[in-house]
């Protein structure tokens, strides 16, 4: 990339370009040359000599376009005659359509207050959208109760398998380990009082009332809630949902309802299973490290638990099922029409699900406390 220049006697500024111009060697700056051209006395025209030029690509083009723009600002004529034919033609092409000034997006940031206002309006709007989604889901559910909802039974079976049986391995692992952890933490403290037998109570009640439902719901939020959002979002992108609508089939009944049903039916069952897996995990610690006998541990667990403990947990699981299915379907149906929107929908589904699980858990726990169960 050799650049040299000279002022010719006929008031021409001659730029000699030589060597190999390749973007791999970087883009040369035109500033120095511009300074020279701009210095007095101003030349009448700029010409090029490229006999020494051995190769060129976009690096030469950007260099020349910068130079040409500079010259036209200073109203200095540029003669392209000395340039290779291809270069001259590409420069003509690049300058054929003048830059559309208003095409560029405004990058200036709005003032803070305006942005706060916009965010608030956006939040109000999304709360409204959420409410109308709840309403539509509720209407679809009523239609289901009246036996008028339209969806395919085979879809429901498939979904039940998908978010029931196929979730067993991961739910087993997570709840087993949670039971184990509960037992460990409890054992350390209870040992101080010689009350290690109460590890069985701790694990049993902890799993049945709280951890079984919560851990299952969180696993399902990541596993199934995200999958729902991605499935529905992709259907939106592919116009599959439009195709349902123009057939007069409500996507709410056809797609959302079976997903909600499947999760609401399966989550309590998974939760019950998780309760037992957790108790098993706790038992292994109790028997293995606290020198309790299996019979002792079993009897203590049975005496600590009653149907009420399980029922409170299962009710929670049912509510969490609604939350997970609702967040997944809501975000999926709200999805935009691009691949990145599907990703955002899946992420947002998991976040919404986990937040609503925790919030509804807190609310339910307070209610349980008030009514004394």
């Amino acid at each position, binding site marked *: 990339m050799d650049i040299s220049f000279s002022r010719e006697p006929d008031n021409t500024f001659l730029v000699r370009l030589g060597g190999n111009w390749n973007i791999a060697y970087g883009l040369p700056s035109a500033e120095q040359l511009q300074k020279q051209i701009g210095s007095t006395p101003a030349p009448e025209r700029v010409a090029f000599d490229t006999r020494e030029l051995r190769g060129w690509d976009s690096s030469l083009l950007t260099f020349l376009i910068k130079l040409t723009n500079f010259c036209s600002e200073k109203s200095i004529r540029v003669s392209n005659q000395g340039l290779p034919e291809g270069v001259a033609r590409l420069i003509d092409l690049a300058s054929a359509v003048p830059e559309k000034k208003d095409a560029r997006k405004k990058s200036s940031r709005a003032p803070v207050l305006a942005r706060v206002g916009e965010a608030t309006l956006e939040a109000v709007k999304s709360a409204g959208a959420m409410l109308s989604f709840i309403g539509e889901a509720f209407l679809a559910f009523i239609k289901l109760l009246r036996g008028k909802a*339209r969806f*395919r039974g085979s*879809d429901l079976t498939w979904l039940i398998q998908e978010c029931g049986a196929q979730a067993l391995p991961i739910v087993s692992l997570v709840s087993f380990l949670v039971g184990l952890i509960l037992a460990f933490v409890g054992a350390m403290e209870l040992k101080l009082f010689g009350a290690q037998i109460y590890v069985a109570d701790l694990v049993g009640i902890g799993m049945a009332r709280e951890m079984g439902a919560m851990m299952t719901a969180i696993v399902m939020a990541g596993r199934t809630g995200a999958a729902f959002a991605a499935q529905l979002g*992709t*259907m939106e992108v*592919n*116009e*599959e949902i*439009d*195709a*349902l*609508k*123009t*057939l*007069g*089939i409500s996507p709410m009944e056809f797609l959302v309802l079976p997903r909600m049903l499947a999760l609401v039916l399966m989550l309590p069952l998974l939760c019950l299973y998780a309760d037992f897996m957790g108790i098993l995990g706790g038992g292994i610690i109790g028997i293995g490290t606290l020198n309790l006998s299996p019979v002792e541990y079993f009897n203590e667990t049975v005496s600590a638990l009653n149907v009420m403990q399980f029922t409170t947990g299962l009710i929670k699981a049912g509510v969490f099922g609604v939350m997970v299915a609702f967040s997944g379907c809501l975000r999926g149906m709200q999805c935009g029409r691009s691949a990145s929107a599907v990703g955002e929908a899946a992420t947002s589904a998991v976040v919404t699900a986990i937040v609503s699980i925790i919030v509804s858990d807190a609310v339910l726990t307070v209610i349980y406390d008030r009514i004394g169960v």
Partner: protein
Amino acid sequence: MENQANKTKARIEVRDLTMAYGSFVIQHDLNFTVKSGDIFIIMGGSGCGKSTLLRGLVGLKEPAKGQVFYDNVSFWDCDPAGQEAIMRRYGVLYQAGALWSSMTLAENVALPLDEYTDLSPSQINELVSLKLSLVGLAGFEEFYPSEISGGMVKRAGLARAMALDPDILFFDEPSAGLDPISARRLDELILALRDSLGATIVVVTHELASIFAIGNNSVFLDAETRTMLAVGDPKKLLAESNDPRIRSFLTRGEK
């Protein structure tokens, strides 16, 4: 005589239609009529609002203003049940086929029949095979949309759009993404459907070859003025229109 009267009956009438996203107007004040048996082309450059207009016609996007009449019934003034009844009279072929990806081709075509008829499963199967063979996909019943080529997906989408024997068919960019031969075969299929079923057909496209091959009426949408510039037979528009924007579109910019 009755047949003659039927021929010129307005199936779809668009009056003062304005489509907008919020305050951003896509197309305003559109007025045109699609007659029975027409192959009506909605044409215009990329981004001029052809597909948005189609969404307004098929009931996916409520217009900001104006009305769409199907056989003199205003679609957007109907209650949901009335809209559903109108929707059942037309079929839509979406740009990318929009087959339901979790179902086989047969299930895709069968779903509308399942929903809206009391036919037995075996009768439905017969109809499904018939529709698929009409579009040249006999034997592909058990394939999933992801297992067949783009052209086949479109044809399967057409089979699904025809499932309920609608007498109005909408096509959104039918030849987009197809090779010239497949595109021409689809054009021939569209002509055959019009001639044999007596269907009224609305096609959104910017494919000149298709426009002249099949269209007998059209509306030209302009992106700059955001409204329509002309209505009429595209061949006539080419021969007679003096508007430079229409001329340059219909001649690919060659003067």
